[in-house]
């Protein structure tokens, strides 16, 4: 009798102890989760806080539509950067999307297991290469090639940047779209083949159509990646604040910040304008992610 009640006591004691540990862990996990939100909110607040003053001082129109960026004469027009980022991203997409989709089609529909394994690991490796290495190789190999091929005084141009960005977004497009293509039910493809369609017709008209939300997600990921890239393209794009053209040196939103932050003096309008560029870039990325979420949600339905 005594013994039984002793056990009972011990048991309740254990239980209290357990639920205390549970509560500690629960709290820790919760805090970690909150931390991410805090980071996002913190960064957003900081960017808005630091980004607004320069835009207000320069004027919305002059800031966004000004064609000249010349801090020494207090000209802070970022239209060249915006357009360069947009053109660069679209250009990379125009090259990378077909290339990536064809690779994805090959991997998901045609490739034998061995070829697939080799290509998949190459693509995975491509995703893992640090961007500074892309920049390095681009600078040493690609830039001279562009210079030679088009007879330019310098090959460090928007074109070179687009090529580098294309290679950098390729793994994202390949991975996301080949996953989507592999998920297309075999039934659809057999239905098409049984109607007398060739394999190629089937893959383009049925499989890609069925995988279109996955392809859209791939595009958005590529866009996000290309917009945010700085290190690789600063090394191949010449980094001059020109209005964008394929064969001129250009500066992106990202590279504008990277290249000038170190010598923009504290408290100056110049430094504040760089923060404003950061805010613009951030707004672009948020927009891209919102679109991605909308697509993902539509896909779930």
């Amino acid at each position, binding site marked *: 009798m005594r013994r039984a009640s002793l056990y009972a006591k011990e048991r309740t004691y254990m239980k209290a102890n357990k639920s205390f540990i549970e509560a500690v862990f629960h709290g820790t996990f919760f805090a970690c989760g909150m931390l991410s939100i805090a980071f996002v909110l913190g960064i957003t607040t900081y960017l808005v806080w630091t980004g607004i003053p320069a835009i207000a001082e320069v004027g919305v129109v002059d800031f966004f539509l000004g064609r000249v960026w010349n801090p020494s004469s207090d000209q802070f027009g970022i239209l060249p950067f915006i357009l360069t980022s947009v053109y660069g991203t679209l250009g990379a997409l125009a090259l990378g999307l077909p290339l990536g989709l064809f690779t994805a089609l090959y991997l998901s529909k045609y490739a034998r297991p061995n070829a697939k394994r080799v290509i998949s690991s190459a693509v995975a490796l491509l995703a893992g290469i640090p961007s500074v290495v892309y920049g390095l190789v681009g600078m040493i190999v690609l830039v001279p090639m562009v210079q030679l091929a088009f007879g330019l005084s310098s090959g460090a141009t928007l074109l070179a940047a687009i090529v580098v960005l294309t290679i950098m977004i390729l793994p994202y497009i390949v991975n996301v779209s080949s996953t989507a293509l592999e998920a297309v039910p075999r*039934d659809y493809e057999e239905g*098409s083949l049984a109607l*007398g369609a060739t394999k190629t017709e089937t893959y383009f008209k049925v499989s890609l159509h069925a995988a279109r939300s996955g392809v859209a997600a791939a595009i958005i990921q590529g866009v996000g990646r290309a917009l945010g890239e700085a290190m690789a393209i600063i090394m191949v794009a010449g980094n001059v604040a020109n209005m964008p053209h394929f064969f001129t040196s250009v500066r992106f939103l990202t590279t504008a910040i990277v290249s000038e932050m170190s010598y923009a003096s504290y408290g100056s309008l110049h430094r504040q304008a760089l923060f404003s560029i950061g805010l613009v870039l951030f707004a672009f990325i948020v927009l891209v992610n919102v679109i991605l979420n909308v697509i993902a949600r539509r896909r779930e339905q």
Partner: protein
Amino acid sequence: MNSFEIDRLNLWYGSHQALRDVSIDIPEHQVTALIGPSGCGKSTFLKTLNRMQDLVEGVRIEGRVLFYGKDIYAPKVDVTTLRSQVGMVFQKANPFPMSIYDNVAYGPRIHGIRNREALDALVEESLKDAALWDEVKDRLKKSALGLSGGQQQRLCIARALAVKPEVLLLDESTSALDPMSTGQIEELVGELKQDYTVIMVTHNMQQAVRVSDCAAFFLLGDLVEFSPTDALFNNPKDQRTADYVSGRFG
């Protein structure tokens, strides 16, 4: 006239022989039912007729399959032409994730019809032939995936009819449907045989009796018996057929 004349057809999946010396002449404008227990080779046989077997890895086929006198396994045969003449409806309804209209127009578009009016007419005709037009004519632009199972299967029939085949292969096409939808499709098959040769695999012996003119009984890769449906069910020549149709195994 025969749609298909098949002479000593043998088929192997790797080292497993799935069809053994199958010889059979399939008459045109009739409904031929292929019956037999699971794994007897009836679906395998059906898929040799439009060469969907080509898609199976490691398949080997010997023998001769003549489609209106032409050997469909001859080296120069264009599989896409063959498949546009020998349409197929699968066990599970597989409409494309597109609109009803685009599903039916898919085949004609693949085969080069671009003219809007021609497509419209073809879509309407095919849906009418598949007894689906009245149910969907007001929502042709809506997704085909919103249709019921039976409607989806009739849409697949319409999709196959839209490429103007000579033969329609049905691979247990009612096995996933409710009795009402099954009845509709059986009725439809009865009407289709005026214009098409229908060859159907079915698990359901009552269905074979209700719908077919001829029936072929397969067992373990052999064609045991091929007769008019009445004769096969009421007066089988082979003891194995008799055992199967009387429900002694299967």
